[in-house]
């Protein structure tokens, strides 16, 4: 379980002080699908960055199980082993092959070439892009690029898959395909999904939806087996 405990994030000092996240708390159970929804500037990305240890909270803490991810000896290592991140604008290495892109997190971890290529091919199979393994990443379509990015996030077999507006740069057809893939992976691998979006339809497919406004949690709706139940009004 990943838990956000009273996280506040402020930018700037004194007169220019701006609170991007205001005392946010939430627990994410293993294997669940979660959406964080809100308007642009509401603090969704900030929350996601702090949850993955890419950024530090001004106050509050993030815990993976019992331990704070910031107190762990190496937050980067923790992230590399437990979290897969998917970005709105893919961030692939255009001149590298698809399989090299997917294998990158393993390369950074120090896995040897043979093993990492094997695992990358497995991840590519899961996103249905095995036939594109040798292509250069820049030659793919937008939807294919996002699927490669998902394979790259998957390749380390993370417990948590975090996606920041994964369909934001895609047309509706490709967007739907990527969405389906994410939920399919949740089903098949039991990976916790954390999707940042402003697409209500996508959010509705998740078992839990957190509404953010001006850095505060306005609603936190969890549904259990199709019955909608509302925590926090």
């Amino acid at each position, binding site marked *: 379980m990943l838990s956000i405990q009273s996280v506040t994030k402020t930018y700037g000092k004194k007169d220019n002080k701006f609170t991007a996240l205001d005392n946010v708390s939430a627990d994410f159970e293993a294997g669940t699908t979660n959406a964080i929804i809100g308007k642009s500037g509401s603090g969704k990305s900030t929350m996601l960055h702090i949850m993955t240890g890419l950024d530090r909270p001004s106050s509050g803490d993030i815990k993976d199980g019992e331990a704070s991810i910031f107190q762990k000896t190496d937050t980067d290592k923790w992230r590399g082993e437990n979290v897969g991140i998917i970005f709105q604008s893919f961030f692939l290495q255009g001149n590298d092959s698809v399989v090299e892109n997917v294998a*990158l997190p393993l390369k*950074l971890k120090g896995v040897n070439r043979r093993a990492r290529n094997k695992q990358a091919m497995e991840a590519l199979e899961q996103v249905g892009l095995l036939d594109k393994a040798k292509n250069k990443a820049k030659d793919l379509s937008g939807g294919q690029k996002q699927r490669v990015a998902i394979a790259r996030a998957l390749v380390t077999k993370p417990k948590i898959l975090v996606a920041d507006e994964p369909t934001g740069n895609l047309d509706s057809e490709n967007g739907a395909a990527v969405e389906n893939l994410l939920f399919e992976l949740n089903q098949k691998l039991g990976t916790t999904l954390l999707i940042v979006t402003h697409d209500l339809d996508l959010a509705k497919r998740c078992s839990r939806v957190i509404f953010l406004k001006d850095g505060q949690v306005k609603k936190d709706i969890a549904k259990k087996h199709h019955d909608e139940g509302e925590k926090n009004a």
Partner: protein
Amino acid sequence: MRSLDLISTANSNLRRSKLRTFLTILAISIGTFTLALSLGLGQGVRNYITSQLGDYQNVNIYQVNKEGANDFGGAFGNGDPQEYDPNKSAAVTDFSQAYLRPTDIDKIQEIDAVNEIIFPYAPAIDYASAPDGKKYTVPSSTFIPDIPVRITAGQNLDKNGDEGKVTISRKYVKLVGASSSEDAIGKELKITYTDAKGQTQEDGLIIKGTYEPTLIDSALTINSIDAKRLASAQAPTGEPTFFAVLATKDSSISDQEFKNKLSENKFSASSLADINNTLNNIVSGVQAALAAFSGIAILASVVGVVNTLFMAVLERTREIGLFRALGAKKKTIFGLFSVEAALLGFWGSVFGLIGAYGAQLAVNSIASNTFLKGIEGLQLLNITPMLAIMIVGIMATITMVAGIIPAFKASRLDPIEALRNE
């Protein structure tokens, strides 16, 4: 990240901005080229000196002259005024003062440490006449026992004997109409000199041996009996005078003690080994100066490395953020850029060395066909493999150190800033 992956990733990063990398490497290779050539030249020249004078390293022969006889600086009076020091010999202001008087020679002989005095008669020969009628100048000296000679044919002269005989540089055999060293043995060399009365005199000397000349050998080495006779005939008083005599040192005393003993008596002594050392010191000095110049070129290229890396960090900001987001540690990012910097030094020095080896081949082949002709196996430029490896190592280290600041900057980039969409 595995070291091998780190190196190959850094290396392929170099290829992303080919022109910039090329120019940076070019600058480093120019610096390396000059460094390798100056060090290689120094090594080659030292080898040359050793090949010429190495034989004399342990020869027990000292040149002895009056202290200050070599110090003409004060004699011309264009230096700054120097205070009189009673413990120091006066600088020579009149060349005649530099000559050793018979009393001086007696004084040298009386010094315990001096075993024997050898007189280096230096008869002046106007020319030697070859059988084909041509006349040649022949720098000549007296035979000095104990000094090693590289005999190529015949035999060396004997101590205190061999009247009427000479040895000759193998390059001079055509003066007796010979085509080879062997051919010259036993032939007569016809010489012409002018005596003290101004009369032209002719003489003949039989060639006993030929030798490979070193830097300090004359063309002609005359036995001491004839050398004394010729020199006496040329001396206005009938007695040859000497600027310096040669002395052998008693084996019970060290080189330095010997020099000190002579110094106490206001004489100075220098051995053949001293010449070797002096030359080597000069070479080292020149080499250091050349290396310092190439050091400046290298310094300039290092500034290029820093610049190149800062630009690379800027260009790859987003990628650095991505790497961090995918679990790369700060240390890995630092490593990537440091290795990239080291690789710039590595490739720059490798290409510079390839150029230097090319230049070495060209220069050595020209040199061995001209002034080093006949000295087998001697290279004017000598960039040893050891030196090459050292240069590559040093250059890679220097550029890696130069890359520390950009690499540190890269490792400290905020991954979120780096990953911003805009």
